[in-house]
């Protein structure tokens, strides 16, 4: 299992379109993916789960992956988060 922390930097936070992109990227990996803030973890491949995190700008996301491609998965998702989920600035 691999874990990385990544700050939410885009103004809108983990909103619907951002969460959609997150799920889209997570779906490319075979590993199980968990995302959370504080003690709450949700399925990283569930858009509704991600929305329920209500991760606003400034939140630190915990991204965990467990499986054959766990390193690449965590890397890709942390990078996506750091890029503000590719929201147009």
């Amino acid at each position, binding site marked *: 299992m691999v874990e990385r922390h990544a700050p939410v930097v885009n103004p*809108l*936070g983990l*909103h*619907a*379109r951002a*969460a*959609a992109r997150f*799920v*889209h990227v997570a779906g490319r990996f075979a590993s199980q993916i968990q995302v959370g803030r504080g003690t709450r973890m949700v*399925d990283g*491949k*569930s*858009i*509704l*789960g991600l*929305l*329920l995190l*209500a991760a*606003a700008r400034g939140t630190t996301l915990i991204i965990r992956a467990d499986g054959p491609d766990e390193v690449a998965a965590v890397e890709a998702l942390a990078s996506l988060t750091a890029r503000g989920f590719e929201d*147009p600035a």
Partner: protein
Amino acid sequence: MTKYNGRGVAAGVAVGRAVVAARDAHDVRYRLAASGVERERQRLRSARDRTRQQLEEISSRVSRTVGAAQASIFAAQLLMLDDPLLVSRADVLIRTERINADWALQRAIQELHDVFAREGDAWLSERVGDLADVSGRLQRNLRPDRDPLVDLIDELDPPVIVVARELPASVAAQLDWTRVRGLICEVGSPTHHTVILARSLGVPVVIGLSGASQAITPGQLLAIDGTSGEVVVEPTDETQERWMQRAELARAALAAFDDLSGKVAVTADGERVILEANLEIADEIARVIDAGAEGIGLYRSEFLLDAGHPDGAAEEVQTAVYRGLLSAMAPRPVTIRTFDAGEERGTGAWRTGGHRDRFGLRGIRAGLQHDDRFRAQIRALIRASASGTLRILLPFVTSSDEMRVARHMIVEIAREAGLSDQLAGIPIGAMIEVPAAALTTDALARNADFLSVGTNDLIQYTLAVDRTDERLAGHYEPMAPAVLRLLRLVAVGARAEKRPLSVCGEMAADPLLVALLVGLGFRQFSMTPSSIPVIKRALLTIDSRAARLLARRAVRASSAQMVHELLIPVADAMHAHATGLKGN
């Protein structure tokens, strides 16, 4: 076992399984038999597939026309569709809790909403909106064609008791009433079309049970008494048996009434009383004849304007419907009330008198102003009149002069259409349903061939009570002395001008109130067909002279409660008679 008490508005006793239609019958809940689980899972999958297809179409259209950025929101919705927390969660609920797909989906959505609400912060609205969009689409796609309740009842094993907040008449009209044995509504009124319909079909109804659609769980066994308003949830075996017996007794008592069916109605002292039927749907005519009705006292023609009859108002369609009615009843008279409907402002579309029309442009007022529709109906009525014995009843008349103008107009319509000869023999009557008409009955009678009292509206207008307003439930009171005094005025006015007088409101179907009405001088009543045998039997216990004394005391009473008390001995006599019959 839990007991509730509502207001019984359609007599009868029934025992059956609950089908719950919360929120206007679009959210339907019931428990599945083991064999139904796969079917519901399949329905859910089909709904998801349809939803996906629609979202993809919308997404690509938006992408082409507006741009990829805007289309991405549908990508989010598509992801929600495949999310384990939504459809997959509902699927789990169908399997584990054996509930129907609609209910399971509703539960999954509610779970999500609950979490959203708990986590609530300022920028949740966008997400909730997306979720609501996609879940609403899914729900609609579960039953793409029909009202869910209609399908549902076709799938269930009877007997079924429908529990609803409110059952719209449009839905009620589509139901298979041979499977529905009872109806429980949170709101509504005895004059609501659904209730009138249920009564006309002999299905017991209890209304005014606030929170019933939440408190009663789908699939629970219910016993319902449409007279007392009692509802028992999950009755014990013993209670259930007792209720089954009551249902059986009610049927047996009805069978005993058959002995009276060939006989005319008379009071205990031999006063002749005419009993006619109110008719909702032309197809019900066989029931009317079976019940021993001496005629149709009220046919509410605005049913022809309802959604189910898009061409209902077409003149030739009307002529055919009226001919059918008249010939089926001939030589018995058929009273057809002209459209009691208002016109939707600006649209030209007609609708039946709803809340906002109560004081509005309805009845003959609308008829005189929107004369094309009125003209077509009058021509259709006159053309059909040769098929039987027609009486034309004009609704919502408020003055003698209005009646005079309306009659004049009818004569003109007939003359223009070359139908003057046919019109000559047709009685034209006035509906007395507002205090203004009741107070001037004698004057009105000079311009009317007959009079018919619509007690439901008369009571509402007299007491300033809107029956559909739950908060006023206790204020609608047919026994209010003010109402009885108005009715006495009507009876006296009609007698002075020697005009036939009938009561066609609900009061006429209540044996106790009929005792009062007989005492006030009324001798003709029109009611839902299933009430005719009941009233016929009740009349046998009413002595017209005793009733007159009773009525005299009732109009001087200080409250409806006092009138109720005056009627207790009458009720006792009726009960004794009924139990006496049972012993035979």
